[in-house]
């Protein structure tokens, strides 16, 4: 079942992760691919932050780990973060200043141009898009 339109660019690559200690490798993977696909250093940092927040949710709140995939589409970097967690909801308020937790997803939607969450038999996919 295709939750989103399939990637036909042939340039995508996938990394699986499972534990908190894998997050550095997830960020390095995203960084390497985004830079290679032509994204600026500054926007690559924002994509790394967004993916890191989603992958942090995976390792903290779900079981079974996750995987991340990066490719380009129509002048955008597209990045899927897939895990076994529930659908993610967006249009979030930023938590108040004294909150110690809860900023992750609010950060994700503020640094990306578009964010969507779709759940299906394979889990939940959060697809991030940032213009190049």
């Amino acid at each position: 079942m295709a939750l989103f339109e399939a990637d036909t660019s042939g340039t995508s690559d996938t990394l699986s992760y499972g534990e908190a200690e894998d997050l550095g490798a997830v960020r390095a993977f995203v960084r390497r691919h985004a830079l290679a696909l032509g994204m600026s250093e500054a926007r690559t940092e924002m994509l790394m932050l967004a993916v890191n927040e989603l992958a942090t949710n995976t390792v903290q709140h779900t079981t079974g780990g996750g995987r991340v995939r990066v490719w380009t589409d129509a002048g955008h970097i597209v990045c899927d973060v897939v895990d076994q967690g529930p659908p993610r909801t967006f249009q979030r308020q930023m938590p108040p200043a004294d909150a110690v937790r809860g900023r992750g997803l609010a950060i994700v939607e503020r640094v990306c141009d578009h964010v969507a969450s779709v759940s299906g038999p394979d889990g939940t996919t959060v697809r991030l898009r940032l213009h190049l």
Partner: protein
Amino acid sequence: MELSLSTYDSGDHTVLEVGGEVDVYTAPRLREKLVELVETGARHVVVDLSRVEFLDSTGLGVLVGALKRLRAVNGTFGLVCAHERLLKIFRITALDRVFSLYDSVAAATAAVGSDAEPTA
């Protein structure tokens, strides 16, 4: 992935130098160090983030916790953060309006304790 932590005293201030990447894996060490500093009597704490290469929401939460802990004991808490990529995260989360942010340790130690009584 590495997180480096080192502390030194500068007058009334305790400066914690943080280097490397602060995320959900490394943040517990940062939290423990900040708790330890306050428990052992530090009241004017400056965290130098100059050598931090990555900081996420978990790291921000640790810093918010430290700010609250120091306010509870009438202490002060300053952050040294000059890199645009980190400042951007503070702006996105509106925490730039909560933390005292400085571009150097000298600026932080000059400002953070400025409301304290002169000792000489």
